[in-house]
């Protein structure tokens, strides 16, 4: 417990050190309160065992003249007693567990296309669709607070797992299967998550941010995402726009309002409005963006973003262009 507090205090202000025990949604909340109960039961049992072992080691150490222990072969009543105690304890835990299952993971029979958000997992990033509005983004999921949202999950390649501990259960994302889970956020704020199933080289850098917003802020964000950014009018961003179409970029990326319609990598229509690059690897700053374009293979080894070995001038132009895509 002391270590728990020490670590919690070393936490950055505003961020939670132990998100599993710091729920911000009704779903995560019912798991966390169950977890507290189970944890105390486990600690109790551990204390009993440790106490009995420590006591025996003190009290029943070999003494001169008393080399042999007592001839006790067992005690059937006692043994049946603790067997029954285990059954009761586990039974009680099971009952609470069943209750928490249905409250943390409601079973609904909505039609397949009734997702509020559709997540498509890729090696190693998240494609995010909002079917109702048509917004498409990546890695950062904006949601309105206080609204139960059904997330649908599909995989473009291998098995991944969507996990944002403060908001609810984790759910595997499996090719050929569409899974669902419910997510909600009690408060505005940023909730950190990650891919939890090993999915190959860059499993480590497949992070998630869920950004809870007030309904008004969310509507504003959605509106902004639906608006296609105006083409740049000044150098060097104008050159950057040309380079983008001329180089290999459009074969993987989409930018709304341009001929670029690639679907292998993230949609870049509003890339400048995101907080991070490369699925949480870097903060999204102009310097980092240029760095990422220059050597993606060093920043995120294994990533499918190729190093095109671009000259400095092209890098700067591309960065200037992408920075206009708010």
């Amino acid at each position, binding site marked *: 417990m002391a270590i728990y507090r020490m670590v919690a205090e070393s936490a950055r202000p505003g961020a939670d050190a132990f998100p599993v025990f710091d729920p911000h949604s009704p779903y995560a909340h019912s798991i966390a309160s169950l977890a507290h109960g189970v944890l105390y039961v486990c600690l109790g049992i551990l204390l009993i065992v440790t106490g009995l*072992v420590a006591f025996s080691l003190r009290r029943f150490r070999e003494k001169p003249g008393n080399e042999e222990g007592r001839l006790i072969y067992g005690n059937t009543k006692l043994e049946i007693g603790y*067997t029954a105690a285990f059954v009761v304890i586990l039974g009680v835990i099971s009952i609470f567990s069943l209750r928490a299952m249905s409250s943390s993971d409601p079973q609904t029979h909505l039609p397949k296309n009734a997702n509020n958000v559709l997540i498509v997992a890729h090696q190693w990033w998240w494609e995010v669709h909002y079917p109702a509005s048509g917004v498409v983004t990546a890695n950062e999921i904006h949601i309105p607070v206080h609204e139960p949202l059904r997330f649908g999950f599909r995989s473009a390649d291998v098995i991944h797992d969507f996990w944002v501990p403060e908001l609810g259960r984790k759910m595997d994302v499996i*090719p050929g299967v569409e899974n669902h889970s419910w997510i909600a956020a009690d408060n505005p704020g940023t909730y950190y998550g990650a891919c939890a199933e090993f999915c190959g080289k860059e499993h480590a850098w497949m992070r998630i941010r869920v950004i809870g917003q007030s309904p008004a802020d969310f509507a504003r964000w959605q509106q902004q995402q639906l608006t296609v950014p105006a083409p740049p009018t000044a150098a060097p961003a104008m050159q950057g726009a040309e380079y983008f179409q001329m180089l290999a970029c459009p074969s993987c990326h989409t930018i709304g309002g341009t001929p670029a319609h690639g679907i292998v990598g993230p949609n870049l229509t509003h890339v400048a409005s995101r907080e991070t690059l490369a699925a949480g690897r870097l903060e999204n700053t102009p310097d980092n963006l240029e760095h990422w374009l220059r050597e993606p293979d060093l920043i995120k080894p294994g990533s499918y973003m190729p190093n095109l070995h671009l000259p400095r001038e092209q890098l700067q132009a591309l960065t200037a262009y992408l920075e206009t895509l708010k």
Partner: protein
Amino acid sequence: MSELAVRPATIEDLKEFEGKGTLLSWLSTCDHKQIGILYLITALGFFLVAGCEALVMRLQLAVPNNHLFGPEVYNELFTLHGTTMIFLVVVPTLLGLSVYLVPLMIGARDMAFPRLNALAYWLLLFGGIFLYSSILFGNAPDMGWFSYAPLSEKPYSALGGVDFWALGLFAIGIGTISTGINLIVTVFALRAPGMTMKRLPLFTWMAMVNSFLIVFALPALNAALAMLLIDRGLHARFFTADAGGSPILWQHFFWSFGHPEVYIMVLPAFGIISEVIPVFSRKPIFGYGFVAASTVAIGMLSFAVWAHHMFAVGMGHAMDIFFAFGSMLIAVPTGIKVFNWVFTMWGGSIRYTTAMKFATAFLIEFTIGGLSGVIFAVVPMDWQLTDTYVVVAHIHYVLFGGTMFAVFAGLYYWWPKFTGRLLNERLGAWHFWTTVIGFNATFFVQHMLGIAGMTRRVWTYPNLPGWAVMNMISTIGAFVLGASTFFLLWNFVWSRKNGQVAGNNPWEAWTLEWATSSPPPIYNFAQIPPVHGARPLWDLHHPDKQDRFMDK
């Protein structure tokens, strides 16, 4: 005693014995004791390799955003570490102890099928060497020891690492199944007169139940490995999402082997504890019947728990509840065992030897691992905590704090039988305390890392609150744990030259392996000793008293 036992080995005998083992005798042996030692030496070698792999991983994870090496190397390291520890360290160690001890404990002269015994060992060794030869070809497997499809399929793992892995494990699996069959037949057919099933030493009981688990569980893995190889080599689609295959099928096959495998890795360790604690408490085991029966219960239930590895798959609540129920149930016989061991110490006259130190530490470390196991049977908690560092902590508390602590207890206990000399208790104490401190420093903090949101199998991680501190503690602990191994190795080396001559029965133990000389002659017993109870040597020492086990 004298009329049945071989003459105790003297220092001259030992000198002769120590000079004797020619290379050819080790390569050609069908003697269960030599094969047992070969298993243990092989496992020790792989233990050092896999331990070094773990230390290198902990170096990479010591600080956030570390670029000591990249994800390619890290993924190969954790795949090899897991595969090696499970298939080439823990299982062979326990098989080696079983193969050495079971014939002695039941008063037999060898295993039922001595040549099959040797074949199984060589399959293990060459399977392991084959697996590691992948490094020479630049293709070490990197998809995890669980090798989930479709990541392990050709489109995502084009190089040969997966094939090396699957073929290596296939060979090892055949060997392990052979030894399972061999042990079952040995226990059923070769018991000395009077050695009824109710008088079997508990280690033998558990080795036998374990063998049944091996015989029923390992074929599922080998079948799945064959299907994976067919997928990869012949373009079948058992485990891909298109053309009727299913990636989830692989998980069912793998874990229907994989969870019994967990018990395969722990039941013989329970057996060790069930021998060591009574001997050093100078008391019979508390509730022999409960301990033996709970082993059978664990064996059966272990086939009804596998999908608790898959609660995050989205199988639906009905499936989740079934497997949660099975996993809760299996905690009952496991809990019974822990309390029976604790009450065996109660009222005893405890000799606090190194073996007993490890056995008592086992009780506490294994309880922590068992309790964190119950947490994963609580489905909603599993939905949060599976695939996080809580699982890493859990498996290491069960397999290191549990199995390896028991194995250390067993090594200090049986080493004199294997070699004729005692290990050094002072070095043993150093080994024990560095192990306990290093182990808990490494793994306890990982429970908290998991709750802090750190997922498993990541080659690096962002600097989130608390993560850097906890990872650094874990890395320091790992190096203390690594250092503890030097005391063990030093003790082995020291004992071979300077260890006190043990005599037949240095611990005044009661099972038959202590009725013969240390090390035992090739024929084990000059005469098969008489068995009238579960503690034959106790009966011999107390001709006037009746062990209550005699009537049963």
